C-alpha cells in the first residue's frame, strides 16, 4: 500500500506525549496524521483535513470526547464519512451503550498498547470506502 492509499487520521488527546507517540507510530506506517490537543482544536482540524478516521480521547478539558464525537458525527458534510475510535476504557456495559449513542464506531482501551491501537486503526480502515 502506498502512502496515498492510507486514510488521513486525526489524533485528539490533551496529553502532548500521547499525540506525539501516536503520530510517530502511525506516521511510520504511512498514515497521514494530524494532531489536536483539545475539542475545539479537533473540530477545526476536522473540517480542515477531513480525516477518514478520528482517534478521540474522552477525558479532555473543555468539550470532552463524547461531545466532540457527537458534533463530528452530526456534521452535515463529513459526519457520514468519518469513523470515530474513542480512546478510553469502556469497562461497563452502560459505558459502551453511551458510546453507541454518541455515534462512536470503535474504541481502544486506555492506557493503550500501540500494537492494539494499530490493529484497531487497520480494522476501521478496512471498512472505509476504497480511496485508491
Amino acid at each position, binding site marked *: 500500500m502506498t502512502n496515498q492509499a492510507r486514510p488521513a487520521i486525526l489524533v485528539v488527546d490533551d496529553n502532548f506525549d500521547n499525540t506525539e507517540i501516536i503520530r510517530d507510530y502511525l506516521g511510520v506506517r504511512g498514515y497521514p496524521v494530524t494532531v489536536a490537543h483539545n475539542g475545539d482544536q479537533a473540530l477545526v482540524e476536522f473540517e480542515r483535513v477531513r480525516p477518514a478516521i478520528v482517534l478521540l480521547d474522552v477525558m479532555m478539558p473543555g468539550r470532552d470526547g463524547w461531545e466532540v464525537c457527537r458534533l463530528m458525527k*452530526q456534521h452535515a458534510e463529513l459526519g457520514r464519512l468519518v469513523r470515530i475510535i474513542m480512546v478510553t476504557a469502556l469497562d461497563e456495559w452502560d459505558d459502551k451503550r453511551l458510546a453507541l449513542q454518541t455515534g462512536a464506531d470503535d474504541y481502544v482501551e486506555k492506557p493503550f498498547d500501540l500494537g492494539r491501537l494499530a490493529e484497531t486503526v487497520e480494522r476501521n480502515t478496512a471498512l472505509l470506502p476504497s480511496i485508491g
Partner: protein
Amino acid sequence: MRNPVLLTDSVDAAIVEAAALLDSWELLVRDGAALLDEIDSNGDVRVVLTTTTNPNALRDLFEHARSRSLPVLVGCADETMRRRAVELRADDWYRDPAPADEIAARVRTAIVRASQSGRLLAEHADRVEYEQMLFDSLSGLPTLPVVIERSRALIKERGELVVLYFNFVRYSKIEEIYGWEKLDAVLETTAGAVRDFLTRSSSLGTSRVMVSFTHDDDFVLFHVPSAGEAVATEVEVTALLRDLEGEMSRRIEAAHGEEISALFDIYAGRAHVYYNPKVRLQRQIYRGIREAASAAKSIEERERGRKVDDLRVSVRDGLVDIEYHPIVLVSTGETYGYEALARGRMRSLRSPEVMFEVAAEADLLWELGRLCRHRAIEGVRDKLREGQLLFLNVDPHDFADPAFTEDTLDVSEPRCVVIEITERTAIKDYPKFRERLRAFRERGFRFAVDDAGSGYAGLGSIANLEPDFIKLDMSLINGIDVNFIKQNLVETMVRFANDHGTMVIAEGVETAEEFETVKGLGVELVQGFFLHRPGGLPALTGAARSAHGT
C-alpha cells in the same frame, strides 16, 4: 520586566519543582480571601493552580480568574474533583499528586489554551455547533430561527400566513426498538418526502412555502401566499395534509418496511396568523405554531379515542391474527422454533406496538394478553415438529393477572413453550415476580429475556431471572458488521450466556453481513428478515408431526 507568577493555594515539593522547571517563574502561595485578592490585583499572575476540594472555594476562584481571563489549572484529588474541574471548564487539570514535569507541562498548556488563539478555536467550534442548531444535518432543513428570519419580510408584505404543524407520534419508539441509526434513516426519508411533495404540489400555487424542522421529530410548514393570490382555503389545506400524510407513509413503507410505517402516526394541525404590527412578529409566529401544534394534538387525541374503541371491539370479537417468525439454528439452518407475533386485524391496530400501547391506556392489557396467548397456542396445535419451540411474548403485567397461571396456560407440553419477558418493562416486585416464574418453571415452561442489552437492566438482573434464552436487543444487531462496539457488546453477552448455560438469539438480522458477523461472534440462534419474514406455519406431514402436540 517582572517575572511571571504562578499563584497557588497549596504547595508541595512537586509544585515548587514545577515552578523551578518553568524558568524564572515565581511561586506565590495564598489562601482563602487573600488568594482571590491576589487574582484581582496582582498583574504578574499568569496561571492559578488550585488543589482545593471545597466546591464553593473552587467556584469563587474560577469566577475571579475568569474576570481577569487568567487560566486555571486544577490538581484533582479524586474523580469527583476532576468532574468538577471539567464542569467549570478548567483550562487543564492533573491527577494530584503528579510529577513536577507534568505540572509544568500542564501550566504551559493552560496558558496556550487561554490565549487569543485558543479563544479563536473555541469560537470556531462554537460556530460548528451553531450551524448544527440552525440546519438539521440529516434532513438539511432549516430550523425555526432560520425560517422565522426568512419569513419576516414576506409576512409583513402579505399580511398573513398559514402554519401547518406535523406531529409524528411514536418516532421515539423507532429509536427505542431499532436504535438511533434507524430513526435517523427514517427522518431522512420523511424530510425527502416533504421536500419532493412541496416541489410537486399545485394547491399551494406560487406561494412561498418554507419548511422547518423543530429538531425534535416534528415538522412545521409556513405557507405565505404570493402577491395577488389568496391564501389556500381550509379545504385545500385539508386535502394537502391528507396527500402529504399519504405520501410520507408510502415512502417510509417502501424504504423501511411495513413494520416501521405501521408503527407511527402523523397528525397535522393548522393555524392562520394575521400580521399585527403592534405585536412582535416572532411572538405572533410562535403563537401560530403553538396553536397549530395544539390542533394537531387534539386530532391525535380524537384518533386515540377511536383506537380505544377499535381495541374494545377487537378484544370482544377476537380480531387478532398471529404470525409466526422462525428462529433458526445458525449451525444447520433448521427452524428451532417460532415466535408468535400478534397483530390487530383492524387497520389502526396492525402494529403490535400500537395495539399494546392502546391496551395499556384502555386498561385492557390482561384481556388482550389472554386473547393473544390463546390464539398463538391454538395456531401451533399439531403443527410443530418434534423438538420445535413456541416463543410467547408475555408482558410482566400479565403475571399479576389471576387468569394467567401455569395451570391455565392451555398447553399439553410446557417444555415446548418459551415465555419471553422483555427487559424494557420495569419489574416492580422482584421477589414476587421470581416466585411466579419459579411456578411456571417447575411445570416445565422455559424463559427468554427479550430486548436484552437495551440498557434497561444490567447483566446482573438478567442473570437473576435465570433465563434459558437471551434475545439480544435489535438495536445491537442493526449495522453490527460495521460497528466494533456492538460486536464487543454481543461478544460479552455470548460469553455471559455460555457461563450461565443460556443460549443467545440475535433478533432483527436483516442482511448477510449482519448474519455472518453474529455467526462469527458465536451466536447460536438468529431471527430476522434476512432468513424469514413472519408468516403462517408450514404444513406438517404426518410423519413429522410431533407425538405430543402443544
